């Protein structure tokens, strides 16, 4: 990458400042001993203590994590198989149709997906709560996994599959010993992306969740509506740190995968 001009650097700094300033402002006031975000009265951790003392909040946090882990795991399994199915479709038109159907789900607004799931669940009589949230999270995660796994599959030489069959591998062996190890970086990328999508999903969850079941984003939304307390700041700060951790973890995983397992020539 070439060196940035002075103007370029200033512009870049300004953009990042505007993007990150509100988050750091929010985190900064989570340590404020005064009850508002207008003046900083002194350092305190009491808002964090409040977060951890609120068992309801902890349960909601657990719900969020469990839904995220479960939904992204299941979505990864289904998405990987789906991507493999799409890539090996002989019929070109069919393959393109499948891909388009997949991509439409990614670009269509969450509100529409949420609303349509709400209609579906009420029509077939699924009780709104954990199950409905999990199912809808799996549903919107699958296309994400597919889109992350596809490039790896497409870059894989079909000779690898022929070579495996030539060496005696059955269809099942080919899947478990050649295809899946080869696309592993794509699978992990898809899993992590699905995880973050699920963790911070608000719109879909807001529609399909029912009484007694809530996730963090929905909860924060309702807390904010009830009136600003710095507990929200503390909770948001915690989520930000965890997300940062995930991104850094993903980055290091990718680095390692790049040095060890770059595909082919």
């Amino acid at each position: 990458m070439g060196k940035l001009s002075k103007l370029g650097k200033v512009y870049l700094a300004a953009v990042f400042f505007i993007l990150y300033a509100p988050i750091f402002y929010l985190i900064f006031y989570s340590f404020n001993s005064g009850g508002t975000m207008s003046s900083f009265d002194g350092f305190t951790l009491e808002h964090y203590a409040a977060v951890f003392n609120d068992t309801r909040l902890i349960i909601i946090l657990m719900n969020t994590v469990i839904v995220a882990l479960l939904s992204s795991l299941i979505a990864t399994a289904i998405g990987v198989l789906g991507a493999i199915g799409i890539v090996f479709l002989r019929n070109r038109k069919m393959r393109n149709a499948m891909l388009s159907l997949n991509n439409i789900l990614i670009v269509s607004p969450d509100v529409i997906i949420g609303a349509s799931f709400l209609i579906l669940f009420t029509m077939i009589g699924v009780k709104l709560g954990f199950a409905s949230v999990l199912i809808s999270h799996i549903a919107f995660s699958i296309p994400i996994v597919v889109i992350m796994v596809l490039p790896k599959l497409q870059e894989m030489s079909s000779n690898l599959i022929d070579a495996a069959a030539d060496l005696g591998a059955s269809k099942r062996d080919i899947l478990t010993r050649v295809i899946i190890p080869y696309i592993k970086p794509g699978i992990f990328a898809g899993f992590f992306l699905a995880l973050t999508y699920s963790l911070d999903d608000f719109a879909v969850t807001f529609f399909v969740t029912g009484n007694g079941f809530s996730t963090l984003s929905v909860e924060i939304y309702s807390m904010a509506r009830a009136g600003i307390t710095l507990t929200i700041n503390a909770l948001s700060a915690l989520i930000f740190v965890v997300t940062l951790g995930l991104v850094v973890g993903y980055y290091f995983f990718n680095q390692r995968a790049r040095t060890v397992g770059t595909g082919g020539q």
Partner: protein
Amino acid sequence: MSDTPIIRFENVTQQYEGAGNVLSNISFELERGKFYTLLGPSGCGKTTILRLIAGFITPTTGDIYIEGKKVNHLPANERQVNTVFQDYALFPHLNVFENVAFGLRIKKLKKAEIDRRVKEALEFVNLKGYENREIQEMSGGQRQRVAIARAIVNDPEVILLDEPLSALDLKLRTEMQYELRELQQRLGKTFIFVTHDQEEALAMSDEIFVMNAGEIQQSGTPIDIYDEPINRFVADFIGESNIVSGEMVADYRVRFANKEFDCVDAGLNPNEHVEIVIRPEDLEITTVADGKMAVTVDTQLFRGVHYEISTLDEAGNEWLVHSTKKAEVGSLIGLAFDPEAIHVMRLNESEDAFDARLEAYGEMANEK
């Protein structure tokens, strides 16, 4: 050893959707333990034959037999055949040892036996000590050897090689030609080698199948094919040739370039229209008085081993000459050649008729 051919094709035709015939009614038999080469330009169907034998595709019509058993619908993973791919197709997520061990692990052999056989195979291809290397750390030539080791470790009856040398540089390619030939002789397995490089084919094969447009044009030993090409395509594809049209005046007498010459071909119709092949290395530069033909030197190229001299005769035919002697561009020189150097090709002759005619010469020569 049994007498059944290891591989037999019976009237095999292969079609791809919308692409017409890739192979048209191909039949041949391959003997055990020989080095065969399928030679032809790209798109001639040679790789399709390989894929049919490996079992990656099934023939549209016709039958394929391996060791006398019909295998049309036997899947690739149940055939006693292993392939070395053009891009090697090594598994990038496995190291050298695991790549070679892949087939043995599928067969669920004992660990000690896998260890022993993989080591043996790697030693066979001179890669001892490379077991724990990653594929990305290996050079092109080394990857090639890993691919060969991965094929031979399974002890297949037939090894298929799909242009395996095409990605290597010239020096390594020549080296690998020797190694492959030697490997085949040490193993005693049937090798089927696909290439578009006539030098590779001539250097390594027991028998060559020259293919064009989905058909086998001619099969035979490298010497047969080089010395007695059946038609213009084969003569042109294998080595360099001077091909001109002419007529058979009578037995052992042929007319071309407005002159009559003695030749060794007979049994053709009088005044039959034929094509004449003379190899550039069979033409010798001499004085106009001593030569059988007078030609003008058009261009001259220094090729290292010899000069490549392009000359024109009075009738306007081009004659390419390979000579260690230099000629002067623009001068008139004589070309001398033996009657044996003249190879007469009938137009549209089938391979069977061609072989019968060649055999007849042998008998006639004996009678003389």
